[in-house]
């Protein structure tokens, strides 16, 4: 079993990053596609397995026009969002409708532009499945949950014990449907991403059990509830001991005048900031939990041609620590610590990724692939659409 390693370092990457920023500033943003390429090339080429490295193949020229179009769309989105609520609703609707297409095109572009040991990856998903997995299922789940919720509102109005029993059982059903539904969507989308991925002529395959995914999800929700309870107890205790409860109790008498409201806020501002920061940390912890657990489970059950296997040893606490300390680094360096933060994440991720390939990779050959436009990928990039299984 071999472990991936990251050979880059923060000071080297800082130089690439700061020169990218300099050139982006001097060209008023036009350099961005080339900056992105240099950036990606650095991370890909420094990721190695058994002495062989990855490579990022896209060129600035290839990304440039798609980047201009995506930027144009983004700017019009921002402008319309500001001036017309109706217009922004329409745009959000359109965005929602094109997300499956963006995901598919991004995956195709990203995989084709990546190679390992001279062999290109590929992605062969079809658009119909993308719409089913990323649009139809989520909508169906929302409608289902909404229907149960409406039913609950109705049963709540029924008097007596029968009403209460009905409401409680509906609540249980609601939670059950939500967890099971989300686990199902996770299963389908992960299968879509992995089963359609290729390495040369090799095919990736995953086999996930919905029950296992539902358990991971339930535990994540449990962790979330627990961390919020802990925050409120801790912050509540500190508040009680320092500011006193009267200040907060008097808060609802403030009225509507913004000036007075502000003065009251000044008193409890430290507490609000404390809660805000704790919430951010809790959020990072919850995300770390979900990511590490999913990664471990998905890697274990994924293979390439049933010959090559994967293992993730990424643990929740080290991941949460890196992400939380990165957040602090970035805030306190006004963004200048970003290169360090990114290198830390890459190092952690790779050293916890292991590949079992007894016969090596030598038998793989690249397939002939047609060119593909980078538009979908650039739209996904500009609008921050999360693509891939997030590992």
């Amino acid at each position, binding site marked *: 079993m071999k472990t991936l390693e990251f050979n880059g370092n923060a000071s080297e990457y800082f130089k690439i990053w700061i020169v990218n920023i300099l050139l982006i500033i001097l060209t008023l943003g036009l350099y961005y596609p080339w900056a992105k390429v240099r950036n990606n090339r650095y991370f890909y080429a420094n990721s190695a397995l058994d002495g062989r490295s990855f490579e990022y193949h896209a060129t600035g020229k290839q990304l440039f026009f798609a980047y201009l179009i995506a930027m144009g769309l983004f700017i019009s989105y921002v402008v319309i969002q500001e001036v017309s609520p109706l217009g922004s609703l329409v745009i959000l609707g359109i965005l929602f409708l094109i997300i499956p297409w963006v995901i598919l095109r991004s995956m195709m572009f990203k995989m084709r532009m990546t190679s390992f040991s001279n062999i290109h990856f590929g992605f062969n998903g079809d658009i119909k499945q993308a719409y089913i997995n990323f649009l139809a299922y989520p909508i169906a789940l929302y409608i289902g949950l909404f229907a149960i919720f409406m039913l609950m509102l109705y049963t709540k109005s029924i008097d007596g014990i029968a009403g209460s029993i009905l409401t409680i059982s509906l609540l249980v059903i609601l939670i059950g449907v939500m967890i099971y539904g989300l686990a199902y969507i996770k299963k389908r989308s992960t299968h879509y991403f992995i089963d359609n991925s290729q390495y040369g002529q090799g095919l990736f395959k995953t086999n996930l059990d919905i029950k296992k995914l539902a358990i991971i999800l339930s535990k994540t929700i449990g962790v979330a509830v627990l961390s919020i309870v802990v925050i409120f107890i801790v912050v509540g205790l500190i508040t009680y001991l320092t500011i006193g409860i009267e200040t907060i109790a008097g808060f609802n008498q403030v009225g509507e005048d913004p000036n007075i409201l502000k003065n009251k806020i*000044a008193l409890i501002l430290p507490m609000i900031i404390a809660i805000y920061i704790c919430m951010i940390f809790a959020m990072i912890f919850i995300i770390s939990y979900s990511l590490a657990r999913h990664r471990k489970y998905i890697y274990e059950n994924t293979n390439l041609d049933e010959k090559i296997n994967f293992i993730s040893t990424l643990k929740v606490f080290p991941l949460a620590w890196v992400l939380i300390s990165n957040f602090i680094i970035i805030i306190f360096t006004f963004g200048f610590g970003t290169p360090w933060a990114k290198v830390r994440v890459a190092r952690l991720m790779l050293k916890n990724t292991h590949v079992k390939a007894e016969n090596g990779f030598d038998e793989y050959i690249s397939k002939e692939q047609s060119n593909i436009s980078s538009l979908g990928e650039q739209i996904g990039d500009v609008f921050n659409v999360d693509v891939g299984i997030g590992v």
Partner: protein
Amino acid sequence: MIIDGKWHDKRSAAQFSASFKVSDDSFCINIETGTEYRGKLDSLELSDRLANVQRKIILENGSVFITNDNDSIDNIFKKRLKYKKMIHTLETKTIWILIAIVVSVIFGVSFFKWGIPYFSKEIAHSLPTKTNILISKNTLDLLDKHIFKKTEISQKTILQIREHFHSNIASLGKLEDGLKYNLHFRLLKSGDFSLPNAMALPSGDIILTDKFVQLCQSQEEMDSVLLHEMGHIVHRDSLQILISGTFISVAIMAIIGDVNFLADMSVGIGSLLISSSYTREHEHKADIYAFEKMLSAKIDPIAFSNIMNRMSEYMDKYLSSDDEVDLLEYISTHPKTNQRIAIAKHYSECFKKGLTTCSQ
């Protein structure tokens, strides 16, 4: 010169040790399997240098030679790389890194300090008048529903104020076609306490609260505040605040965006801190606008100082229990009252000298 590396056949993962030999303008690659390739250096395709990551040379037949010996490669292809090496040079020379850091910091600070306000102003003023009406539509209805109560000022007083305003003050600050000033009177209460306030909507609507009208002891005082509000409308401040808010969110997203989900959470605090400093600037400019108009209309700017004093005395009575107001200086949107009063006094000096303009 001999460079050690690895060789891949076209589209093959299989890797072989190989060496790359150069003499004059031709090369020879010896692969461990015994195969040998010869040719001219010009026929080779070369990847750009990036830090010290693996360098790739593509042969005419599509096979690939890779090596970590970047310096030797740069040496061999010196002529060809003259311009292509530029970015790598920037990335390795300390002086350029320092320049890049300095430029980024200067750019970042000036963008927030001058860039955003400048662009917000330009954009706000280049948008059609309709935008003003669009964004203030429903605002008054919303305020009426949730915050304001019906005025208790007599209809006669309201008519007098309106009459005076439209015949004497409104003409001092001309609005573009389609917009006109409109005075509204409302009661604003916090508990049993009536609050003095005046505010302007982009559409030209100016709202005065009952307490404000009561606190005004002279026509000049009311006019000074009305002119301040007209300044906000003429400057299109609401629109500017909207636009700069967008700039701030997008900029923060761009800075922290790489770290994805953290960005959303940081936008909140960042926007609050930055935008409140812009708002203070808007208030200051509206003050100056009012003072200049007052000078040209022969009204003593001291009136503004008087009404501000009275309003803050009145608010002090209400806030008497609170002493931690200073803490909020950071996120307060209005300049400190005593600073505003000082500027009013300065303009008043000019007024007494009979000047119609006043240098600061």
